[in-house]
Structures are given as C-alpha cells and as structure tokens.
C-alpha cells in the first residue's frame, strides 16, 4: 500500500467521521466544529487530486467563511436549536408514525449508496487510473488555465455570480438587521426611539384593519399600548 493511498484513507476516514458527527452530535456547536474539520479533510482530498487552487479556496471559503458564518449563526440565535414549527418532512413522520423515523432516511441514503456504487462499477470507474504522470497537475486544474477560463469563456456566469452575491447581500442585510437599526440607517425621524422588545410587533395592528399609514411610529405606540 503506497503512502498516497494511506493518506487518502486517513483523510477520508477523518472527513467521514466528522460528517457523521455533524448529523449526530447532540451539541449543535460541536456539530459546527466537526463540519469545519470535515471541510479541512475535503481540502486534503482536493490536494490529492492535485487541485491545489481549489484546496486553497476550499479552506478560505468553506472553513474560513461558511463554517464561521454558521458558528456565528448558532451563537446569535440564542434559542438552543432553531426549528421550523413544522419541519419540512414532519408531515410524513406524523403519517407513518415514529417507527420509521430513523429507518426511512437510512433506507433512502443506503439505497442511494448502493445504487451509485453499482452504477459506478458498471461504468468502469472503480479501478480507473489517471492518464499522464501521477503527481503533476493536469492542464485543467492549473491555476492560469482556471483563471483564463473564468474570465474568458465563463465570463458571463462569473458576472452573474456577482449579481447573485449582491442579491444575497441585500437579502441577508434586510433580514438580519433589526427594525430600529434599519430606521437609523435610513435616517428616519423615529430612529432615536428605543423600541422595547414587545413593541416591535407592529405587524398585528397593521393586519387588524388599517386605513391609515401604519409606518408612523405614533400609531404603533398607541397600538402597542392598548
């Protein structure tokens, strides 16, 4: 068994163990940290695939940005575990009772595994060796080649991705900012007033039957006071 193979198995084992802990660790903070470890392991796998640039980006984006955002998200949402009131797959759970709760997802995942392993084997991909010299980076994973492609033939999606980032920025900003902060940001007259946690819920009065413009703070105060 060669050294690279050993390294591969070590990295794969670490990543898969970490991934397993992500979905099973009772502590959500630990799960987030396991996820970071899993991403590091995947970056190692990228290195074995001679994709140095992608390994670097993986560390920067996944470990540096995404894991950090998620950990921040965990810390900022003080509620122990944020759940939708009715999680997406809950209705199935209710209908089929509790017994399959661990069984069916396991079945789906296992079926996926078996099916894809069979298919890969049939396609002759299991024992395939790379063409060309073993350790050198192929032309397609070369950094200059990636750069030329990204700003050459793939320029349009790259530009579109920047619009996507703008959209995400706007969305995250408007959702995550508190109402008061937004008002300060927009320089509105009501900005100096500090809202109590309970009085920020103008939505109810607004829904109840409004003919007047509900954005005015006076009305909100009256509504919350009564």
């Amino acid at each position: 068994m060669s050294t690279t193979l050993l390294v591969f198995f070590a990295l794969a084992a670490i990543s898969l163990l970490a991934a397993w802990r992500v979905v099973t660790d009772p502590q959500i903070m630990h799960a987030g940290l396991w996820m970071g470890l899993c991403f590091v392991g995947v970056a190692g796998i990228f290195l074995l695939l001679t994709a140095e640039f992608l390994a670097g980006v993986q560390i920067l984006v996944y470990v540096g940005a995404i894991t950090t955002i998620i950990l921040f998200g965990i810390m900022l949402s003080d509620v122990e575990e944020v759940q939708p009131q009715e999680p997406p797959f809950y209705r199935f759970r209710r209908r089929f009772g509790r017994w399959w709760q661990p069984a069916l997802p396991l079945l789906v995942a296992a079926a996926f595994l078996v099916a894809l392993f069979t298919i890969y084997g049939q396609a002759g991909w299991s024992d395939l060796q790379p063409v060309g010299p073993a350790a050198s980076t192929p032309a397609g994973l070369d950094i200059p080649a990636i750069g030329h492609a990204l700003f050459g033939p793939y320029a349009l999606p790259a530009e579109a991705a920047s619009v996507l980032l703008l959209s995400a920025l706007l969305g995250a900003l408007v959702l995550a900012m508190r109402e008061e902060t937004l008002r300060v940001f927009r320089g509105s007259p009501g900005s100096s007033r500090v809202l109590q946690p309970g009085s920020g819920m103008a939505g109810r009065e607004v829904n109840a039957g409004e003919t007047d413009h509900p954005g005015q703070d006076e009305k909100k105060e009256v509504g919350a006071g009564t």
Partner: protein
Amino acid sequence: MIPLGYFLGFGVLLFALGLYGVLTQRSAIRMVMAIELMLNAANINFLAFTRYLYPDDPRGAIWAIFVMTVAAAEVAVGLAVILVLSRRRQTIDVDAAEEMKH
C-alpha cells in the same frame, strides 16, 4: 496511484451522510450543515472527474468555484432567515411573560 473509484466512493458516502442529515434533522442550522456536506460531495465529483477523465478541461474546476460562491451566498441568506426566526421566538416568549404579569 489511487483509482478513481475511491474518490467517487468518498463523494457518494459524503452525499449520503448529508442526505441522511437533511431527512432526519429537525434543527434548521443542522440541516444547513448537512446541505453543505452534499455540496462538498458534488465538488469532489467535479474535481475527480477532471483529474481522471478530462485532465485538459478546466470546466470541472470552474464548476467547483461556482458551487463555493453560491454556497456562501446561500448560507448567508439562510442564516439571516434563521436569525429572524429565532429572534421572533424570543420576542414571543417575552410577550407571553409580560402578559402573565398584567
């Protein structure tokens, strides 16, 4: 050298774990994490295919870069949504407490 199948198998295992997580978790943040695992599995596929089958085509690497970009954007919006939800739950608790006092 490592055969292609090992990398693909690793990708499938990672994807299956993510899929299992998405189907079983009730916590929104945990589901986001599981989805990230699935995206990583797709990236491994793209790079492994590039390395073994199409060594001269940068397409796979380009895809991987886009997946990472989009994942970052998605996570940012998703966590903002989750944040609103958690903040809202807290507000509700505070309200309930205040109503009890009166």
